[in-house]
């Protein structure tokens, strides 16, 4: 391997990335917009988990004034009350799961409707009934309040968004770009030079890792300035985890880049891999309680281990020794993908 050749390819790829303003801007803007969006949606007090329709109310907007329904129910947190003009309109909303429960305002007895197939409707009905029962339950229950520092949803989500951005950038920035280069003859031109496949692939990989870490730091600084994230563990440990995650995702991109000249096919394969990874690797929500086979599939994705380790460090204050299993899995995935990618690589087929 000759470092001069590797460096030439590394700098050329970096220049391309930084000069392609649309792609460059989007790499920063995309994660920032998602974080900002979720910060606004979930950061305020208006966040509601359940929706109850109240009829008859003329304007179909969120109700913030007192209406003639049980007072205890209307004061329940995380329930949004929406005005509905008529029973017919309300039943239609209920049928389409746009509201979880429909209640008629007026003097008792209050009529209400639920959709039997709605889990949220079932819970909301329990809340409605509970709001009408006597409060003296001291002998049966003892309320305790969690005293530790709360983890906001945005704190939990942030590593997920960074990891997701990293995944898309690694898979598409390496997998798709190399296939495009193969299709349009750039790789064939490079094959005609003394550049070796190992030098070329190493340069692509190093360039992507450099760009991903650069993006990660810039997005982190930008988002942290607005949302003030708390990192319970060490920043250095977090950097190690993200670096290894970067490495494994990029090497996965190399496997996809190793063969093929069809951008459409590669695009399909990339979607086939990235979408399940996005939903099952706990980017947006936890899969705790999901069937075992779903967890098993999630375990085959590097993003799952990256996010598990990152959240342990960021949210729980874990050290590198605590996330060693995840680091080992990420390292093993990197080695396996690199071996497969390098052995399958073709300049022009």
């Amino acid at each position: 391997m000759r470092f001069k050749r590797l460096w030439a390819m590394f700098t050329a790829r970096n220049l391309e990335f930084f000069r392609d303003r649309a792609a460059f801007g989007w790499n920063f803007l995309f994660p920032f917009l998602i974080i900002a969006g979720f910060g606004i949606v979930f950061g305020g007090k208006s966040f509601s988990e359940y929706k109850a329709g109240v009829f008859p109310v003329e304007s179909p907007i969120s109700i913030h004034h007192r209406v003639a329904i049980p007072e205890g129910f209307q004061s329940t947190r995380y329930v949004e009350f929406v005005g509905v003009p008529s029973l017919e309109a309300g039943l239609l909303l209920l049928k389409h799961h746009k509201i979880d429960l429909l209640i008629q305002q007026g003097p008792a007895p209050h009529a209400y409707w639920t959709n039997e197939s709605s889990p949220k409707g079932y819970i909301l009905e329990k809340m409605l009934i509970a709001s009408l029962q006597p409060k003296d339950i001291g002998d049966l229950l003892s309320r305790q309040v969690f005293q530790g520092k709360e983890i906001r949803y945005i704190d939990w989500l942030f590593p997920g968004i960074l990891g997701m951005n990293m995944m898309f950038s690694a898979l598409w920035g390496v997998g798709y770009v190399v296939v495009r280069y193969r299709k349009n003859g750039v790789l064939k031109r490079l094959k005609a030079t003394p550049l070796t496949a190992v030098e070329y692939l190493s340069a692509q990989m190093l360039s992507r890792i450099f760009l991903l870490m650069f993006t990660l730091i810039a997005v982190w600084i930008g988002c942290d300035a607005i949302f003030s994230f708390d990192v319970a563990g060490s920043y250095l440990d977090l950097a190690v985890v993200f670096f290894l995650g970067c490495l494994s995702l990029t090497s996965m991109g190399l496997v996809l880049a190793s063969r093929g000249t069809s951008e459409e096919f590669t695009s399909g394969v990339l979607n086939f891999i990235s979408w399940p990874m996005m939903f099952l690797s706990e980017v947006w929500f936890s899969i705790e309680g999901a069937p075992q086979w779903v967890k098993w599939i999630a375990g085959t994705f590097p993003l799952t281990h990256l996010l598990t380790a990152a959240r342990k460090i960021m949210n729980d204050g874990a050290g590198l020794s605590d996330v060693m299993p995840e680091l080992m899995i990420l390292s093993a995935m990197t080695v396996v993908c690199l071996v497969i990618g390098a052995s399958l690589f073709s300049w022009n087929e």
Partner: protein
Amino acid sequence: MTAAGLFHKLQQHVDPITANTTHIPMNPLLEVRHLVKTYKSLKAVDDVSFAIPEGICFGLLGPNGAGKTTTIEMMEGILSATSGQVYYKGSPRTGAFREEIGIQFQHTALLAFLTVRETLKTFQKLYHQTADIDSLLATCNLLDIQNQYNDRISGGQRQRLLLALALVNRPELLFLDEPSTGMDPQARRNLWDIVLNIKSQGKTIVLTTHYMEEAQLLCDEIAIMDYGRIIARGSVAELITKYCGEDAAGKSCAEANLETVFIKLTGRQLRE
């Protein structure tokens, strides 16, 4: 006598039609022996053998689908041959081969967001022995556009840049695969001047082209391919002498040119 001179002399005694099988000049720079390339049931190149002496411009002509590009890419080492051998300086090609050749492909994209100068510098770093970038820019008339991005240059400028890239390592052997395709007459003539200049420096050139005028001007030796085989070989003068007398149109030898020979040998039927 130079290798090229010797080659000319020997060629005069060779029947071009039977030259497909064997005729190897002394000390060829590049030699292909019984080259075959098959794609499933299609035989794209069928037992092709020839040798190219040092310092000449060797033209490989043929209609579309004749097997020119496949042959040239096997010579370059871009495609692997189904069977047959390629020898460079009398030995099988080694890793050093790529250090000593320059290639201008028929279809090649470039890194869009690099300037012309940066592209040359990037490729320069891939080789041990390199040409001076400023001289290269001047030789290929690229000085005025050296700071423009590759995706902002015209078709002719792009072809000149591709030629400059092929020269960035001061190659001993230069492959030009239809270098003037898509160029306007001015740009084509400019390219010919550049190629003649390279040729005057003693470089060996392998050229494929669909322009007979171009081949007639630039090539010392020509091989005409059709259906994967070499059907005629010799200098332009030899080919005209050999085939003009049999011209069905009744043209005299004085009127005949390489295109007359080409049509005579490959026919008027349209090819894909």
